[in-house]
């Protein structure tokens, strides 16, 4: 397990030094905590994750894991991207095996069995021989999650992992992730970037709301674990919390847009979470 800290972190691209993509960002994530980062497009969510993954380095301040500054990618962190990022020349099982091989020195059989186990876990038992392009988007993301979990990193970094998946599969994958994390003995820290308010509430312990390249609000999700979608969405607390986040999203936004989204939401109904109004940003 690992604790994460962002301390006065700034980030700007070397070819555009006048514009800060992240501006004095500070937060801490405890070991085993599931934190979602939400906010409008271009507010710096994915950049925050890329600094944590080591793909980019902070221009100012410090990103640390267990007190050690992040200087590049590491085997303690695993990433799932929105675009699946499976290697197209490797079959599904080989993609998982390849991930395992990077962190585990073991014989072929052990690695193969482990890959089978994780594919089974994400509901893809028997699909290991297919190439990524022979799988649907949802299935590809399941393989990516299997690869991530099989690598057993201390920190899971997920950048809008269900953003490109249809509503039905998105709900199924949210449930799967919730179930897998609740079942695991090892409690991992998770940083999850999303546009989807409902997804963030369902999955997270805390939500960091970003606006204008800064952390605007740090909110604790008022539900204990393990939790189920049906239970929490039936509570008033859920709708109040959701409303608070919704107001944050549309505060100072285009006149009339908030009302239009609310009216659309009312038509969809309160149980179709994570589908129609998911992408609010």
């Amino acid at each position, binding site marked *: 397990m690992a604790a994460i800290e962002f301390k006065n972190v700034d980030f700007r691209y070397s070819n555009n030094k006048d514009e800060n993509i992240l501006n004095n960002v500070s937060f801490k994530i405890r070991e085993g905590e599931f934190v979602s980062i939400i906010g409008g497009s271009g507010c710096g969510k994915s950049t925050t994750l890329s600094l944590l993954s080591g*793909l980019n380095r902070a221009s100012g301040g410090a990103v640390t894991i267990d007190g050690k500054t992040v200087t590049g990618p590491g085997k303690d962190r695993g990433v799932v991207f929105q675009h699946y990022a499976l*290697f197209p*020349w490797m079959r599904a099982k080989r993609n998982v095996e390849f991930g395992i091989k990077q962190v585990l020195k073991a014989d072929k059989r052990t690695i193969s069995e482990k890959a089978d186990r994780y594919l089974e876990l994400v509901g893809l038992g028997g699909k290991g021989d297919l*190439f990524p*392009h022979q799988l649907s988007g949802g299935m590809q993301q399941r393989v990516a999650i299997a690869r991530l979990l099989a690598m057993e990193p201390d920190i899971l970094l997920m950048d809008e992992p269900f953003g490109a998946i249809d509503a039905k599969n998105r709900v199924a994958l949210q449930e799967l992730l919730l179930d897998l994390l609740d079942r695991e003995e090892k409690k991992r820290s998770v940083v999850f970037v999303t546009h989807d308010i409902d997804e963030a509430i369902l999955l997270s312990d805390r939500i960091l709301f970003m606006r204008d390249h800064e952390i605007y609000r740090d909110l604790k999700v008022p539900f204990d674990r393990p939790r189920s979608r049906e239970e929490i969405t039936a509570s008033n607390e859920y709708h109040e919390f959701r409303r608070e986040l919704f107001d944050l999203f549309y505060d100072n936004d285009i006149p009339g847009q908030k009302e239009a989204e609310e009216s659309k939401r009312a038509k969809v109904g309160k149980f179709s979470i994570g589908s129609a109004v998911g992408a609010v940003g």
Partner: protein
Amino acid sequence: MKKAIDKIYKILPHILLAAVLASTALQAEFPKDTTGYISLMLILAAVETALIVRRKKWSAYGISSIVYGLILIWSLYPVINGRESFLFPPPQRISAVFVNDILVILKSIVSSLWLLLVSFLIALVLGIGLGMLCGRNKRLQNVVMPIARVLSPVPALIYAPYVVAVMPNFTLAALFIITSGLFYPILINIIVTLQHFDPKLRDASDVMGLGLKSTILNIYLPYCMPSLFNTLAMQISNAFLLLIGAELMGMDSGLGWYVKYNSDFSDYVRVIAGFIVIGAIIAVVNIGLQRVRGKVVLWQQAEQ
């Protein structure tokens, strides 16, 4: 109407085959030049067998009709002309060469393919190796790419007189010329492919913290394979051009040598036989390359 056309299309190659057999049987020398006729019959039997085996493929009928049609025109030419042409010998004379010169031709094929294979391997190892390093190291790429762009358009055969003077023997000179002709297209292909490396895959491999060896072998190399095979397919003809050119410099075996040696004696029967063997070898190498491509980049076929 369409059914009738289809029927004619299917019968046409067999009618043309019968015409070829009749025209050759009617010629004056039959059966004196037995070897020639028997070998021609063997070639025709091979085409007919291929047609029967692949009869489900519609194109097989068209290809067979063209082959039989050309042989028919070719075999009728001396009959129409009234005598055999020195520069345009009849097919049975050419086919006889395949029997009479079988050992020389086989030796030439082995010699040429060996030269080609070794050159290809050296060019592949050097081109892919340097290309991968350039893909990984922008600074190296900025140095290598302009040099490659200047040197690659220079035809490798231009070096021939100088290389022959510098190298200790003709074989090494031929190897150098063929390798240098293949090296630049492979190198440039790898560098350009890696310049457009999918950023999503770059992120995915970067976050795994792969080392240089693993990145090259497991990520870059398979990523480059489809375009590399396309380049190789295009370079096969170029490679044969270089091979023949290199063999003409002074080698004492090989298909290029066979054609050159016989043309020096104005033996156009053997020269044409040499052309046919070179064409057949290029076709076989191309088919082999496509087969290997099918196995190596199976994932891309699945994608398509």
